[in-house]
């Protein structure tokens, strides 16, 4: 059991929201689709379990950053599809720039020599 989780990285607090918003950027997806997209996009490193995904989806929906409607999936099943709202799109841009600043800052600390050579 444990081995399965060894390659996984714990998501930083708040990053799941960003990943979900990003995943929805190109159109509506259902819950399973979002989980799969994150997993595939991260090369199987990031796995979002249902216990984190659904609370996050409901939270984002309550903040009116995403909306949901019932649809039929490509496998012909009735699913609930989530899509970005206008507020969600703005939030995504904001969160992305936040993340870039954060990762740049992290990089600056973790690889100081590169920074110096750039300067």
């Amino acid at each position, binding site marked *: 059991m444990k081995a399965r989780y060894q390659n996984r990285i714990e998501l930083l607090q708040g990053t799941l929201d960003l990943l979900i918003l990003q995943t929805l950027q190109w159109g509506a997806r259902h819950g399973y689709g979002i989980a799969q997209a994150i997993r595939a996009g991260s090369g199987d490193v990031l796995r979002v379990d249902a216990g984190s995904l*659904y609370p996050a989806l409901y*939270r984002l929906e*309550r903040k009116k950053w995403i909306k949901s409607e019932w649809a039929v999936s490509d*496998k012909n*099943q*009735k*699913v*609930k599809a989530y899509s970005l709202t206008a507020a969600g799109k703005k939030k995504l841009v904001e969160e992305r720039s936040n993340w870039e600043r954060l990762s740049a800052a992290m990089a600056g600390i973790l690889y100081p020599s590169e920074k110096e050579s750039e300067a």
Partner: protein
Amino acid sequence: MKLFRWRRRKEEELDAEIQSYLDEAISDRMERGETAEQARANALIEFGNVGLVKEVAREMWGCGLLERLGQDLRFGLRMLWKDKGFTAIALLSLALGIGANTAIFSIIDAALIKTLPVKNPERLVSLERGDVPPGSSRDGFSHAFFEKARMQQELLAGVCAFWTGPRVNVALDGQAEVASAQRVTGGFFAVLGVNALLGRTITEEDDKVPGAHPVVVISHHYWRRRFASDPAVVGKTILLNGHPFTIIGVTPPEFFGAIVGEAPDFWAPMMMTEQISPGDSIKGYYRMGFSPMLARLKPDVSEQQASTLLTELLRQTALEEVGIEIELWSPERQQALRRQSIALIPASRGFAAFGFPTARTRFSEALRILMAVVGLILLIACANIANLSLARATARQKEIAVRLALGASRFRLIRQLLTESLLLAGLGGALGLALAWWGISFLLALMASGRTPVYLNVTLDARALMFTAAASVLACILFGLVPAWRATDVGLTPALKDSSRSAEGGARLTAGKSLVVMQVALSLSLLIIAGLFVRSLGKLYMLDAGFKKENVLLVSTDPRMIGYQGKQVSALYQRLLERFKTIPGVRSASLGWAGLLSENWIKNLGTLHVQGRPAPPGSPRRPQLVGVGPDYFETVGMTILRGRSFTARDFDRGSGQKAVIVNEAFARYYFGEEDPIGQRFGYNEAGDGQEIVGVVKDAKHSSLREPAQPTWYGAAFRQEATTFQLRTAADPIRIIAAVRQAAREIDGALPLYNIKTLARQVDESLAQERLISALSSFFGLLSLSLAGIGLYGILAYAVSRRTREIGIRISLGAQPGAVLRMVLRQGLILTLLGVGIGLAASFAATRLLESQLFGVTPTDPVTFVGAPILLLTVALLAGLVPARRATNVDPLIAIRQE
């Protein structure tokens, strides 16, 4: 309802969504080549705990908290309903505990804590003497000083004084009755800041000229009782002692006057003293002094400033009063006069805080003890419920383990269990409030039945409700938290396998055991307290009071209320006495100026001198004087020890030398072992005037608790209020109608009051003692039964856990007697532990009760042996049922059970 439907829709959506997630995952896996079964299993494993996902997802729905609370409450109610026995015991003990606490708190609040229901009570101060010049025993303030203080406008918004009493004969529409009055100076209502509910209050204008303004303000309760809340009462004329008075107003319902514990029926101006109180004059009050005196400070004036000013006024007035004569005084005396001062005491809670024998001093000690007693009861009730909950939690161990295994968090479960406790506490609190309502009226009735009735304005107000809520929540935490914590502390695997074999029970049993020990200790303490009070009361009743209380009827009257004066009064008394003697069933009749155990005393007669003897050594004692009619000692059953009783000749005013009878205490104090018969004493320097003709056995005149005071009895038909004593052949209650009829024949208007038996008078003088012992016994027995239930619970539980072990013992040849003893021993050990702790605690604590006890020491051996025996008996009985059950264990069934 709307919320409910919304919630169901959300729930269905969530189910559908999770289902679609799983379906997608399964078909995904099948596309990758897994078999349908594999795909399904793997998808479920990957998804995780469906219930938990639902739970965390629901939390995001917003109103989850409220929703869950509703859920918990519904579930809790169901669990409580399922376990009716537990719920009934828990609710009953909680209701009694909380109800008793609320009732006692409400009364303590009204008597000791609440401020007067007046405007800005914190600005009220009472005037007290600081340094009193030696030789001046007067504790009141002179009229001149009162006027000076009243006239100054600088620091005080007003000054007033008031006098309680007397009883007044009220005639209205041809019906007479006796009511209680208070006389006030004109500023009384303005200083207190009390406005009339109807009409107006008494003002300075009403209190300027003696006898000029016959007006009264009636109290709300009198208005309701006597006038049926008639709004047209203002302007009505009533006859007070035969004088017409106009009702000018009604006070608000919450206003009971400035003395907590009293409830005057009406207030009249001080200047009407001669009409209200026959025989009194305003000049007399000027001489006696103004006390209590009440003042209202102006805003922003400190007590310090005001007391400085008033002290200055006091000294100035005193100098003016003494005048030129001061030149003759010794320097010390002059200095003392100039040094006297005034202390201001906050009076926001009304009078009674300082030496007034009213509610605050009379019942406060009893109330404090009762508060402690009911606090203990609540603790015991909580321990009992905690104990029962522990046993219940064990029974629910499997349910809890299953819920934990299904992913419920421990916090969530604790919350669920606490919700159940809160539900219990809430229901118990609500029931307790109902009980408190009943309890308060019971207590108030008891307090008002005393010899000096105490009236309190007690209502179940917001403060009482808050107290109840706090007590309930506290109780809930006390009895709910530990069991909830323990119940959820479950080792999953053993608990799921089989609860009755798991090792967990050990710790839980220990917790239960210590609770039972605590319960036993607490209830033993309560039993001891109750025992001490009951024994004190018994001793008071068994006490030789010096008179025979059986078959005596007391009737009080005051002919001055209907205009009799001087000799007319004594003549009337003589006629009444003759008439009363002819009533069938009356064996003898007499009258006494001061009734037995009635608190009507004139003690301040000055210094008594015995002819030809120096004053006895030590601090001087002032003997009491009781004026009595013919046959007094025979009628009340007092024994003449030496000499003779009064004869008709002694009542003849003409005879110069007055014959008196003294009691043993008097004889001992003044004459030691010598024969007092024939000795003379008096209140003049010569010490003559009275000749002792007899010695009567000591009788308790003022209080059963105190030893008899030196007392002398004079033969007299006093011209004041009096009490008749009628000794009857049978139950004195039966002749009341005949007594009324007899009085009517002589004067139809004569007011009769305080008609009761002497036995009841004795009971009433013990109102506080009876209150404490009745309540403490009730709670003592209650705690005893709770302790019994607790013991039974813990032993029954232990037996049910040890069924297998007992079965093995029996199959190996243990005799039923041995099994019985084994279980009983367990109960006995717990009880003895509790008894030990309880005895030690009581031994240390009962000293605090000493002032309330009579005739028993705080470590009374009878109580300290009797209470543990009672407790052990109950413990044995409580243990017998589970012990018998243990002996009936069928070894075959017990062993096969697992």
